């Protein structure tokens, strides 16, 4: 609680700075270019046809989703083991998880649409897909723990522990799902992008998409983290008013 700087007024403080606006502009231009590349400049795949264009958003959203949870875990660890127990790390962890849950949802939707077109079904019990669902639910739970109430430090400690436990849980879930699938002697399931022969431009577009989405993630977390800081500041500002009201009870 002590680490929050009092803001002039949280309600009127903007979350944008010159740097973050610049970043936002870069992300916007990058998205426009990615759309052009993905829809018009790249060729169709020999096997999948235009369906392959889904790859340029599916792979980046999935990448961002996993990146977000790594950021949440690292930020939580830095909060837990930092000498200051800085709430900034806690808010970065929270912001990153929120963004991560959205992108995980998006990657599940785009993945299942792609699956429908290539596998003929929306859903396969593929280990990667199954783990992703568990990750999604686990972090929905994480966000619920953040919402339990109590002081900011208490929120940070609780959710930090849950985030670190999730880091232990997810590899075990993945491992057990992989083992589970491998015991069923079914044909190994092709990843949607497994049978795509990529030419230079397609590969570039994919990597470019990953880069642009990573910047988008950074931009969103930056702003969300600032919003959370302001929300915490409003809570603390409300404290002054509440204390004043409490003092008035005396007289």
């Amino acid at each position, binding site marked *: 609680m002590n680490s929050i700087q009092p803001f002039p007024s949280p309600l009127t403080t903007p979350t944008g700075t010159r740097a973050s606006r610049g970043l936002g502009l870069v992300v916007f231009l990058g998205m426009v270019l990615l759309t052009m590349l993905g829809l018009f400049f790249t060729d169709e795949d020999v096997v999948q046809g235009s369906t392959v264009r889904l790859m340029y958003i599916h792979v980046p959203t999935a990448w961002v989703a996993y990146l977000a949870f790594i950021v949440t875990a690292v930020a939580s660890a830095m909060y837990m083991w930092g000498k200051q127990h800085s709430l900034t790390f806690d808010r970065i962890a929270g912001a990153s998880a929120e963004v991560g849950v959205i992108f995980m949802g998006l990657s599940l939707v785009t993945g299942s649409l792609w699956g429908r077109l290539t596998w003929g079904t929306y859903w396969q019990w593929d280990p990667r897909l199954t783990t992703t669902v568990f990750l999604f*639910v686990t972090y929905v739970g994480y966000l619920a723990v953040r919402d339990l109430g109590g002081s900011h430090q208490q929120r940070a400690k609780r959710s930090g*522990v849950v985030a670190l436990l999730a880091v232990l849980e997810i590899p075990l879930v993945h491992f057990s799902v992989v083992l589970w699938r491998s015991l069923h002697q079914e044909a190994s399931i092709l990843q949607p992008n497994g049978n795509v022969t990529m030419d230079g431009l397609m590969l570039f577009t994919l990597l470019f998409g990953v880069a642009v989405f990573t910047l988008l993630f950074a931009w969103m977390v930056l702003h969300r983290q600032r919003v959370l800081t302001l929300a915490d500041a409003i809570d603390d500002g409300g404290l002054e008013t509440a204390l004043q009201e409490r003092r008035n009870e005396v007289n």
Partner: protein
Amino acid sequence: MTQHPISTMSVARAIATKDLRIEWRSKVLVNQVLPFAGIVMVLFAFALDNDGILQRVAPGLVWLAVLFSSLIIVQRTFAIESADNALDAIKVAGVSSAGVFLGKAVALVVQLLLFECVLVLLSLVLYQVHLSWGGAVLLVTVSFLANIGIAAMGALYGGLGAAAKGRETLLPLLLLPAVAPVLIAATRATESAFGVSGATLGEGWPWVALLAVFGALFTFGGTLAFGVLTEE
């Protein structure tokens, strides 16, 4: 006027003994949760009204029933603490939270074990599966290790739910995805023990290793994390 230093293990023993004694006295598990699990097993049979299918999925049904029941057992184990706010008294006593965690977990392991004995017997009768002696040995090992994992996770997240008053509903959301590996491993190993789905006995034992790792990891993690999750 100072306290004698009390070891984590003594605290754990006191908590576990107390929990089991309360259960012995109140019989909530036997009179309420077991009948619930029993009816779930019967309902499964109604839903999957085909002998062939029932036999094949019996291991999964047993472990699903165990998981659902474990939610109730975990909630019950913390309800006895919050009924007269004993949790506060324990916190103030400055006892090792690792000890409280281990005590709670041990009591859960024992209760779950008793529970599984009944559910497995029920599945032998209701789903007509067969259990060889070798299968029984495998099954006991699997149950014991699986219980350690479920109990560790349950004590941890149950404690979190109990500390955040009025939010006990969070438990299933946190617990079920976390114990998914236990469900998978225990189900596959039980398939081997029952000899269904073409599984042989030997195929069951590798899963035992996974259960052991899971149990060890979260018993250790829970010992460290319980204090942070339950304090205000």
